[in-house]
């Protein structure tokens, strides 16, 4: 099982960090204003938006390599929720690309979105 890489500090995210919970509800609305609702998920799926700053080239390289190893959104890996350290065994990148910014020595930036799979 692949594991999402940590920074040299041991952290996986920095402030500000975003975490979402997602359900999927089907809503059938009737002409008279009534409605029926059906839940699609049995529990909330989480999604993390991770923005990283002040990374050195080695840390950027690890992130980039990990994305390639996972073939972008295709792969699955375990991810430790930086909010509460809960480990989610089946997560993926939401997209197929990762932007890296090299602003100076030890001043790299990266952002990535990780989502939990059901």
């Amino acid at each position: 099982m692949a594991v999402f890489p940590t920074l040299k500090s041991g952290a996986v995210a920095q402030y500000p960090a975003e975490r979402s919970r997602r359900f999927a509800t089907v809503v059938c609305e009737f002409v008279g204003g009534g409605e029926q609702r059906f839940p699609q998920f049995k529990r909330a799926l989480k999604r993390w938006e991770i923005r990283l700053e002040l990374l050195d080239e080695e840390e950027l390289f690890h992130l980039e390599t990990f994305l390639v190893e996972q073939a972008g959104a295709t792969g699955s890996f375990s991810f430790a929720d930086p909010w509460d350290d809960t480990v989610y065994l089946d997560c993926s990148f939401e997209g197929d690309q990762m932007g890296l910014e090299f602003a100076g020595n030890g001043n790299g930036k990266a952002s990535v979105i990780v989502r939990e799979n059901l």
Partner: protein
Amino acid sequence: MLVFPQLTTGAAALYPMQRRRRVRSVVSELGDGRRIAYSDVGTRQTEWELTLGGLSATEMAAVEELFESTYGRWRTFTFLEPAGNLLAQSEEYGAPEWDNGPLLELTPGIDDPFGGTRAVRVFNAGIVAADVAQTLLVPGQFHYCLSVWARQNNGPEVSLFASTTGSTVTNTCPLTTQWQRFLSPVALGVETESVTFGVTLGEAIGVDLFGMQVDAQLAPGGYQRTSTGGGVHGHARFASDVATVRAQGTDVFDSAIRIISKGN
């Protein structure tokens, strides 16, 4: 009881907040220029957009816990209007929403503090104290503020009270012949699912009352007249299946939540 949580400060929401009322009209414009319009009352909806900024982990966890419990948009919860009066029929004390003592005599059409004639003279013709009261299906552990304008008719004082199973708060207010707005902060501190708010009149006491209001916060807001629908929305829902929280720092969280309530 699923209910949208109150902040630890006792505030119901934070600025900025948006509220949007939505109704639907079915309009037919005829060839001769006439227009026929019907109101589709079944589709009435109120929507709130709450900006939750600088919340603690405990406060944000309460919101996320509610979101998990409702499965996003699926299940309903109780939402207390953050910028309005929770009571229904705030000036019609004879309406069915009110649960008054049987020997209370109500005389509407009395001059009110705003220059109108919407106040009510209340006289207790009984030999025991009697209440003008309304029971709301709201959690007992929240903070509230009960307020009412009152003036003396033939009674020296009136008592504002809030009561739930196992706890009661009473605030006795001395009256004068001038209108005064009396306040009673309410912190009952027990986990119940209904609270009765009202005014108690002693035996053979008469007072003029106007504009009773309950706010789900520590202090009263500006008075808001209500009719059949008060500010307790028992079938509110999250408007989205996604709830996003941003951690700005240690124990500092931001989010924006949209809530809808149909039928009011």
